[in-house]
């Protein structure tokens, strides 16, 4: 039983170690899909926008993680 619990915890940690970063990354991809479908962004420039947005999400995650804990 403890092995199953540890396995579940490992899988959760793999994808949601920082829940906000996970939500942010998924939201960026969902917005990119919506923008593409609604013709709001040209397919040629979308990859660069996504890459930059992911870097920004990482920066926010790092800043949050580096803040001293109260």
């Amino acid at each position, binding site marked *: 039983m403890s092995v199953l619990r540890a396995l579940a915890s490992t899988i959760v940690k793999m994808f949601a170690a920082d829940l906000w970063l*996970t939500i942010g990354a998924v939201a960026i991809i969902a917005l990119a899909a919506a923008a593409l479908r609604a013709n709001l962004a040209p397919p040629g420039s979308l990859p660069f926008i996504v890459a930059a947005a992911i870097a920004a999400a990482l920066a926010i995650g790092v800043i949050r993680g580096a803040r001293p804990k109260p």
Partner: protein
Amino acid sequence: MISLATAAPTIGAAFVASSVEAVEAFTIVLAVSVVRGVRPAALGAVAALVLLALVVAVLGPLIAAIPVHGLQVVVGVLLLVFGLGWLRKAVLRAGGALALHDEAAAFDAETSALRGEGQAHAAAADWLAGMAAFKAVLLEGTEVVFIVLAIGARPGLLAPAAIGAAAACALVFAAGLFLRAPLARIPENSMKFAVGALLTGFGVFWCCEGLGAPWPGGDLAIAPLIAFYLVAGLVMAGAIRSMRTRTRTA
């Protein structure tokens, strides 16, 4: 039959990513073999490896049945989330905001825990030691399986990804046997940094490809993307370091 030029990045990515997990698993297996002997350590590790091989054998063909574009988006998002988590942690460790992972300390903690268990329940000590090895290989191996399935998710790439991961595990095992010590000298955080950037780069590339917004240059765009996240991570680590230095001197 896929060409070596197509397979090489997959083999390399699976190799580097898997070697980090293999080092962590080997540290625990080595601790078990030092305290309770090779037999329970080997039995536990082999049982976990068999279970993981079954998971790959079952999930591998299932993945091939999913339409390529949908699969690229799903696997891309999973790789992206997984890679960003590693990269964030590696940046925080490189910047000094998080403690570095210490294999020697993990080895000491596991050996003293097993020695304590051995004294308290001598009859069950081998079983507990075998379970410790099983659990370590299963948990770290789960991440290796995910990496293999995700990186090898395109047609024909599962075998190269599995070869890369198997080579990493074999190399770590051989190095550990030769040194007979925890692999503390391997710069684990630097590897995690590189793997985080690599998985993030792969993830962003596949998400865009799957959404129908292909990268200029096709597969050749993966290398600059990985380099971009590597440089971005290094800049962030440098910024945290200087921020912490300023705070300490103020």
